[in-house]
């Protein structure tokens, strides 16, 4: 794992919707294998930024390379190399766990043998053996989220983007979820995660905080707390978010 290999390079990335600047010239870099926390109040522009990085939304201006590919011209190559888990649960609820895994594995071009091996690993890892043939819609939220994450990294992408993956999930399941994240990071998958939980922010290697579409700070949690002269990430966030003009 080369420590300084940059898998996300964003340079003045901007997205406008009419007069509204959702994301305003954000510039940052993320290294391979890093767990990168992307924080900000509701409406600060996190999801827009993430959707641009995933190739779901075309930037208005600025540049970015994801996994070495250009965000304008090589979106399909980017998509081969990333995983994405949206805020809204988006596996197929009327398919079973096995069918969902098979479908997404197939779409990403895994062979039947790979799908078989991966499915078994995944089902065992999540302890879903007895549920494997149940419809995904019938699972509790916590399991759904763990399953979505596992499906998002099924094809061993270089980067996985997680948009508030633990929203509405209980603390125990959140802890288990972060175990999954660490395991993926250990395999060299870069994690790009947004969250509103400050304890989760502490788990990240580095975090950035967006305020009103701008990237206000970017550093390790420890450095941030030191520079703001406070004891917890909560307080760092609170000080920054208070200056925000945009509300909910």
């Amino acid at each position, binding site marked *: 794992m080369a420590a300084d290999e940059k898998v996300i390079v964003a340079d003045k990335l901007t997205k406008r919707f009419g007069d509204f600047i959702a994301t305003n010239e954000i510039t940052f870099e993320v290294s391979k294998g890093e767990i990168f926390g992307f924080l900000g109040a509701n409406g600060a522009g996190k999801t827009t930024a993430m959707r641009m990085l*995933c*190739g*779901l*939304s*075309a930037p208005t201006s600025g540049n970015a390379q994801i996994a070495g590919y250009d965000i304008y011209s090589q*979106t*399909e*190559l980017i*998509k*081969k190399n*990333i*995983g*994405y888990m*949206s805020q*809204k*649960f*988006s*596996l*197929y*609820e*009327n*398919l079973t766990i096995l*069918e969902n895994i*098979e*479908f*997404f594995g*197939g*779409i*990403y*071009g895994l062979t039947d043998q790979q799908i078989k091996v991966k499915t078994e690993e995944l089902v065992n890892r999540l302890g879903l053996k007895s549920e494997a043939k149940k419809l995904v819609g019938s699972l509790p939220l916590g399991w759904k989220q763990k399953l979505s994450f596992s499906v998002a990294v099924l094809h061993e992408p270089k980067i996985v983007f997680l948009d508030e993956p633990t929203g509405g999930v209980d603390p125990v399941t959140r802890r288990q979820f972060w175990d999954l994240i660490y395991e993926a990071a250990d395999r060299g998958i870069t994690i790009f995660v947004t969250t509103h939980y400050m304890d989760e922010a502490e788990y990240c290697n580095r975090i950035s905080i967006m305020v009103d579409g701008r990237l206000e700070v970017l550093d390790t949690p420890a450095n941030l707390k030191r520079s703001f002269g406070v004891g917890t990430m909560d307080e760092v966030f609170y000080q920054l978010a208070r200056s925000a003009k945009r509300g909910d």
Partner: protein
Amino acid sequence: MRTLKFLLRKEFRQIFRDKSIVALIFFMPCIQLIVMPLAADYEVRNVNLAVVDHDKSPYSQKLISKVIASGYFKLQGYNASFKEALSLIESDQADLILEIPQGFERNLIREDKQKLFVAVNAINGTKANLGGSYLNSIIGAFNADIRMQLIQQPRFSQFPVIDIVPSNWFNPVLNYKIYIVPGILAILVTMVGGFLSALNIVKEKEIGTIEQINVTPIKKHIFILGKLIPFWVLAFIIFTIGLILARVFYGIAPIGSLFVLYLFIAVYLLTVLGFGLLVSTFCDTQQQAMFIMFFFMMVFILLGGLFTSIDSMPEWAKLVTRLNPVRYMIEVMRMVILKGSGLRDVLPHLAAVAIMAVVLNGWAILNYKKTN
């Protein structure tokens, strides 16, 4: 190609897991083809008739009983005055008034000439029109009968008479079922195919699963094909069920070749499904898609030539029907099933729907945006 396999497997699983869609696929053709042709009848019966007989003579009685005996009319009132009869029309209990003037019999015999008055409630246009002309022809026949009785026929008619005897080809007894069943079948596959495909992609947008597809490296045309093929197969199944039902219940078996019929349906379905998919790429909610499809379906069906003849439409409407895939479908259904037309005869139709299929599907692929 491998991706397509996974897409199709997923779509079929989802379709057959949805019990309401499976029920729809099998019950819709049954209901529409078994029940509807019995009710959707072009013939006008049960025309409500009010009679005002000022003459009350044997002749007027004879005329009235002849009218009633025709089976097309139901005597609603035998009124003393026209005013009374009119009130029946006003309260919608009667569709027609037949007024027989005083001295009907006398004048008919003596002066060889008499006038009858028929008032028609034209609110229900078809019923009034046909009812009126039925009544006219009955009176005409009655008139001829009387002539026979009263007047000694001259040896040679003074007037040359041209008697027209129509011969109805392909549907000799003018059985309207033979005419309407292929049309209903055409509309059935159009509705099912169009609506299912239009709602499908939009549904994925609504529940958010399309995002998860859009972040994958899936090719756009593969995705559209993955949505197209399942409904294409389904519509084929429905069409086949419909053909079997038409055979079993109405004895309508295609006179022309099944190959030609299926070849045309294959291309036609691509057009209809392509249109549905195109609509779904424009819409964000199922409600929007539903309304847009509804609008177009109404236009397609009303300008499709099933209920009204395209030849009698105004010129501009005729031009519009050229862009209407349903029109070609209904024509080809009737041509091949009833008349036995071959591939050569339906080639212009085939070409028209093929062009539409290419345009609509191409447009759907272009308009489906993975990045916005």
